[in-house]
């Protein structure tokens, strides 16, 4: 059979494959957002900007320090996590008792600030980041040529997401985190340092974004605008998946990447809008999101 629903198999499978790659990024990013929102009740608008910072950090490591991709995979998230610690301790902390909207506004401002800074120094057209040697070339799958690197991205992201989910839902550390959000005073009474946990959770969430940034660097241009391009879609993913649900954001991220890819085959013009259409439908039918719990 040469065609599926009137479309050549090549096109179909190819776009699905690409959709999966995009979905992997959506999954990691929405995972970070969901962790932060679920634990801290903050909508982290700066997530996209920190993803961009991660990518830039990888680029800087390569160009200024000669350190390659593998170092970047380790160092960039740490650096971004550190920035997260600073943000939480110096700014977000002050907003704890207030309306959650202020957290959103603050992180929005931070996003603007970070993006502006990088645009000022690096222009907005983007820097190229070389694919590491081992990933050059690809697999000829018959229906498409799949670059090795994109395959790596899919596997690494899925692995990472599952690992994080496991830690949060199945381990003692995760249990502390979840308890700390539900009832911080009680948890404090048990002697656990709740403020520290909050800071580290934020740092971890944004470190995930930084990691996504490093993985994105060879595929998308390392540009100050890369964060704002992707952040709105990721927000939609998180809302669809259910704003506090870890598993929800992983599954939704991947699924939406696939849906986007499919839409590109059948009705390309709709591909940027389909995520939002789905969001509207989900909100009407299941207001808390597909996997969410109403808070």
């Amino acid at each position, binding site marked *: 059979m040469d065609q599926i629903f009137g479309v050549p198999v090549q096109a179909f499978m190819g776009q699905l494959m690409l959709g999966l790659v995009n979905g992997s990024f959506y999954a990691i990013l929405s995972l970070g957002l969901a962790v932060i929102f679920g634990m801290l009740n903050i909508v982290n608008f700066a997530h996209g900007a920190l993803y961009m910072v991660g990518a830039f950090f990888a680029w800087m490591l390569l160009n200024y320090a000669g350190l390659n991709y593998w170092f970047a995979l380790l160092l960039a998230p740490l650096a971004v996590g550190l920035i997260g610690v600073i943000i939480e301790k110096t700014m977000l902390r002050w907003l704890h008792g207030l309306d959650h909207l202020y957290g959103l506004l*603050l992180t*929005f*401002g931070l*996003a*603007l*600030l970070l993006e*502006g800074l990088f645009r000022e120094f690096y222009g907005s057209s983007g820097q190229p980041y070389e694919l590491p040697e081992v990933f050059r070339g690809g697999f000829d799958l018959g229906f498409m040529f799949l670059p090795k690197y994109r395959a790596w991205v899919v596997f690494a992201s899925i692995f990472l997401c599952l690992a994080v989910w496991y830690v949060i839902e199945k381990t003692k550390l995760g249990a502390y985190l979840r308890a700390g959000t539900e009832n911080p005073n009680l948890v404090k009474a048990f002697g656990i340092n709740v403020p520290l946990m909050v800071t580290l959770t934020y740092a971890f969430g944004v470190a995930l974004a930084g990691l996504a940034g490093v993985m994105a660097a060879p595929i998308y241009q390392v540009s100050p605008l890369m964060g704002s391009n992707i952040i709105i879609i990721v*927000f939609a993913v998180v*809302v669809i998946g259910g704003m506090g649900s870890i598993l929800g954001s992983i599954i939704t991220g991947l699924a939406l990447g696939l849906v986007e890819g499919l839409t590109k085959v059948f009705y390309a013009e709709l591909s*940027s809008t389909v995520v939002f259409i789905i969001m509207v439908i989900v909100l009407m039918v299941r207001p808390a999101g597909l996997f969410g719990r109403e808070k």
Partner: protein
Amino acid sequence: MSTANRLVFAALVLALLVAPFVGYPIFLMKVLCFALFASAFNLLIGFTGLLSFGHAMFFGFAAYVSGHAAKVWGLTPELAILSGTASAAVIAVVTGWLAVRRQGIYFAMVTLALAQMIYFICVQAPFTYAEDGIQSIPRGALFGVIDLSSDTRMYYLVAAIFLIGFALIYRIIHSPFGQVLKSVRENEARALSLGYHVDRYKLMAFVLSGTIAGLAGATKSIAFGIATLTDVSWQMSGEVVLMTLLGGMGTILGPSVGAAIIVTMQNYLADLGSMVSIIMGATFVVCVLLFRRGIVGEIEYRLGKRSS
């Protein structure tokens, strides 16, 4: 209206009348359009307590419709602006009905996503010409007789529209309806328990806010002759939030002050490109952390402290 407020309003009208002789009409028109936009936005956040992060959809879509009406359908400016405003009202009813079911953060996210939908519709729709935008929108002749090609005359039309919109917002706030909105902002549960159909009030506020924002956008496109994707972008939504926050949420003149400051800053720093983002971002952060009442709000608060 109290005597004090009447005086202020008169002073405002006077200032607007005189302004084009002292300043640059094009720049003043920009300030007024954004002041109206921010004031409309304030109706929702300052007086009803709902943060919409997608207000650009009203502003920008109305700009497109109004521009298209003037350029392609050949409507006179007042009809073009009305059609733009009407389109914003329609969008407000539909999106409002969807969004109002949710509260707080969720409401903001929903409005953001809905605005993105509108953005992408604008990218795809042929009549908006995507990246080029609708260019060379004719100013035409008001009511078919008053030629608007002179910048000064166009300015007076914009000023008149601003005053009408502003007066309308003032009336809404100081009406019984406005009182209910304020009570919803203070304590929604209590308002509900008192028997008010809170959702209906919120929807009404949303529609009014969106429509007046649309009026601002429709006017802008006739005044400047161009409607582009920038007008429906989420960055634009963010800008109007900043203007209102900086000026003072929940104050009457605050948003206009905020708009004036932001537009001026963008003008001054235009050739420095990215500095604008940096300063706006920094202003956001500072305002949220230390300056939540905004300029006018802060002034009112200080004066209040001294007199009590």
